[in-house]
């Protein structure tokens, strides 16, 4: 009586091949999505293995390559799982991270098959045709593979040598793996390699150093003045493109780093970069700021008609309100009108400086932040060539507001 020897599983066949793969450098890492059970006392595959979700291990390889420049990466895949990760394969190819693909049931150039799995899953499960999946040859072309070849599981030593050759060839290699004895095996094409992403990246970043953090602010943090408010809320509202957010940044840093206060800046703006509503809230005070919104603004500045219509009616009675000229209808009981955009245009040539210009109004209306601190904050945040003109616009707004109000309000 003869006992039929069960056919080997794909992994068992591959393990035999890996056993005789001999490389000079570090171990290759095998990446795959093909489940395997090293049951019946069967040994582990000898090399390190990452067995991840189908298609996704292709991107795991990107991280491994970034961490391990010299470690060979060996992707063992069948057409279906690689197809699930085709997006990742395309981008991995674009980055040319250098990887060898072992494509099972390869019909590289011609049709082919792999040995039958003991459990039958391989023989019955692989219903995806190569026409649907994109052929390994097409992948090889898309990957601009340096080496394309086919090996047979029936000839483990030849396949092992092919793997070694592929691994030692820079760039991508694609090796079809077949079990069909009628198919030709060996190296089928070679082409020159092209720059590998992380090599290029490292060359680019070589010599880059951490710049010392230099600050024009005094090293010793300022201490708040005894007259500092417990909590002062400032809201600047306008439209995108008026420099509202920058104004908030400058004001909060002047308060926090110049005056030694607690300070927060919070912007609320939509998806549009220009023309949409834009608002910034700065809250400062001698007490740590919990709630960062200026819902009950002590100082409210509106720079557009929409902002004026939205904000002024909800301002609390004691608030100091400033409106840019032309944003409100003139009349008694209204906000203080200062030609903010006009001053900005006059001194800087553009209304992008309107926000920063309005900080002059804030300094004129409150003792909390001095003009000196604002000057330093402006220098810290603006390019050198823009500092002087913006400063002049801000100072002009300060002087005009002081004249119009006859002194500080809050």
């Amino acid at each position: 009586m003869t006992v039929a020897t069960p056919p080997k599983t794909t992994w068992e066949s591959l393990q035999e091949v890996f056993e005789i793969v001999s490389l000079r450098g570090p171990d290759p890492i095998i990446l795959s999505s093909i489940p395997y059970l090293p049951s019946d006392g069967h040994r582990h595959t000898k090399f390190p293995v990452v067995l991840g979700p189908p298609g996704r291990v292709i991107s795991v390889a990107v991280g491994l390559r970034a961490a391990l420049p010299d470690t060979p990466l060996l992707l063992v895949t069948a057409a279906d799982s690689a197809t699930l990760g085709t997006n990742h394969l395309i981008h991995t190819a674009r980055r040319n991270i250098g990887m060898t693909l072992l494509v099972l049931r390869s019909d590289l150039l011609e049709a082919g098959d792999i040995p039958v799995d003991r459990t039958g899953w391989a023989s019955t499960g692989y219903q995806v045709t190569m026409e649907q999946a994109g052929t390994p040859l097409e992948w090889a072309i898309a990957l601009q593979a340096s080496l394309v070849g086919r090996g047979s599981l029936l000839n483990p030593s030849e396949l092992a040598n092919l793997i070694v050759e592929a691994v030692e060839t820079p760039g991508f290699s694609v090796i079809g793996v077949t079990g069909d004895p009628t198919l030709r095996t060996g190296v089928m094409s070679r082409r020159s390699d092209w720059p590998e992403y992380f090599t290029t990246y490292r060359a680019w970043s070589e010599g880059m150093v951490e710049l010392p953090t230099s600050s024009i602010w005094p090293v010793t943090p300022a201490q708040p003045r005894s007259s500092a408010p417990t909590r002062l809320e400032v809201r600047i509202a306008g439209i995108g493109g008026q420099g509202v957010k920058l104004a908030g940044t400058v004001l909060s840093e002047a308060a926090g780093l110049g005056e030694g206060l607690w300070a927060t800046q919070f912007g609320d703006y939509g998806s549009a970069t220009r023309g949409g509503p834009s608002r910034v809230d700065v809250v400062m005070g001698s007490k740590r700021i919990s709630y960062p919104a200026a819902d009950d603004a002590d100082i409210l500045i509106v720079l557009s008609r929409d902002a004026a219509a939205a904000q002024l009616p909800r301002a609390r009675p004691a608030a100091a309100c400033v409106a840019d000229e032309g944003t409100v209808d003139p009349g008694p009981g209204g906000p203080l009108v200062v030609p903010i955009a006009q001053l900005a245009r006059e001194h800087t040539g553009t209304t992008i400086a309107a926000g920063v210009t309005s900080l002059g109004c804030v300094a004129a209306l409150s003792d909390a932040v001095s003009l000196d601190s604002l000057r330093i904050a402006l220098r810290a945040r603006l390019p050198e060539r823009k500092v002087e003109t913006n400063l002049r616009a801000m100072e002009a707004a300060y002087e005009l507001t002081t004249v119009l109000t006859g002194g500080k309000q809050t």
Partner: protein
Amino acid sequence: MSTPSFMHGNQAIADGAIAAGCRFYAGYPITPSTEIAETLSGRLPEVGGVYIQMEDEIASMAAVIGASLGGLKSATATSGPGFSLMQENLGFAVVGEVPCVIVNVQRVGPSTGLPTKVAQGDVLQARWGTHGDHRIITLYPSSAQEAFDLTVKAFNLAERFRTPVILLSDAIVAGLLEKVEIPDPADLEVVARARPTVAPEQYRPFDYSGSDVTPLAKFGSGYRFHITGLLHDESGAPTEDSEVVARWLDYMQRKLDDHLDEILDWDEIRLDDADTAIVAYGCTARSAEHAVDLARERGHRVGLLKLKTIWPFADDMIERLAGRIDRFVVPELNLGQIRSEVQRVVGGLATVEGINRADGLQISPEQILAAIAEKAPAR
């Protein structure tokens, strides 16, 4: 010695990552998290690290796992839509016990939602987003300073427990510019990647015998082992042996549950004499803290429990509070994701009320104050 500087929450996360030793970032930019990627794209090459913009968030999470297996502390950042895409590989990192940090700066969802508006709708997704029973650590800062501190803590916990750690943030904390005291590197506690102490031949990548993790050997360093999304034995080989799977499951829970004192983090604010406790986190905790001050001025005995670790949930702390607190108020920018947790722990010991909105606006201190001023509902 520390250096004060002004930065928003997103930049604090990026700076915290660098300070914690992060040397690999893979991501796909998305509002309101983009400044994290932007900052790290400049900082990482300066410190010998790698920044890479991936094709999508699926690949980002996969690359983070790969780089971590290659020995680099790794992170990604995203918002809700990208966080959804990361769940598959997040589960892979849980099962493979691969340390990494995933930042989710929340915005209003589901789907594309309100891209620039604030929400806290992903709190339960952080807990249960990937399939299957698992434990996860989730931290959540409420200020730029906490964003820096908790990012460092997230990397430390990821290494300590060989696990992905989720750092939740929100559009308000992300965009809030405020003072951050950056500690001197010498004063900063940073957990380095543990290395195996045994020879490669003796190395086993997993140990289910207790609740302590085995050091993760660096791939490519001569240690030959397998990382798989399949359930596996201590050698890393896939297994279907239910006895091994049961031991694995027990270990995976105990590795966090037995060390809650290292993981849980919260602030107690004016709770000593309180009869009412607000439980809040992230941007909402700031409104809540202001509301506590306003309520105290009006004579209400209110305090705040600010959660900084969201998952595992602070069951014991809530239970202790429930013994002496009459009323819990849970404001959230979602429809009650943490309220249900508080309710679960409190049971019938106190009343639990939610203040909820998910319309892109934040909860104001006045809204919380109004709820407190109302008579507490019957238990």
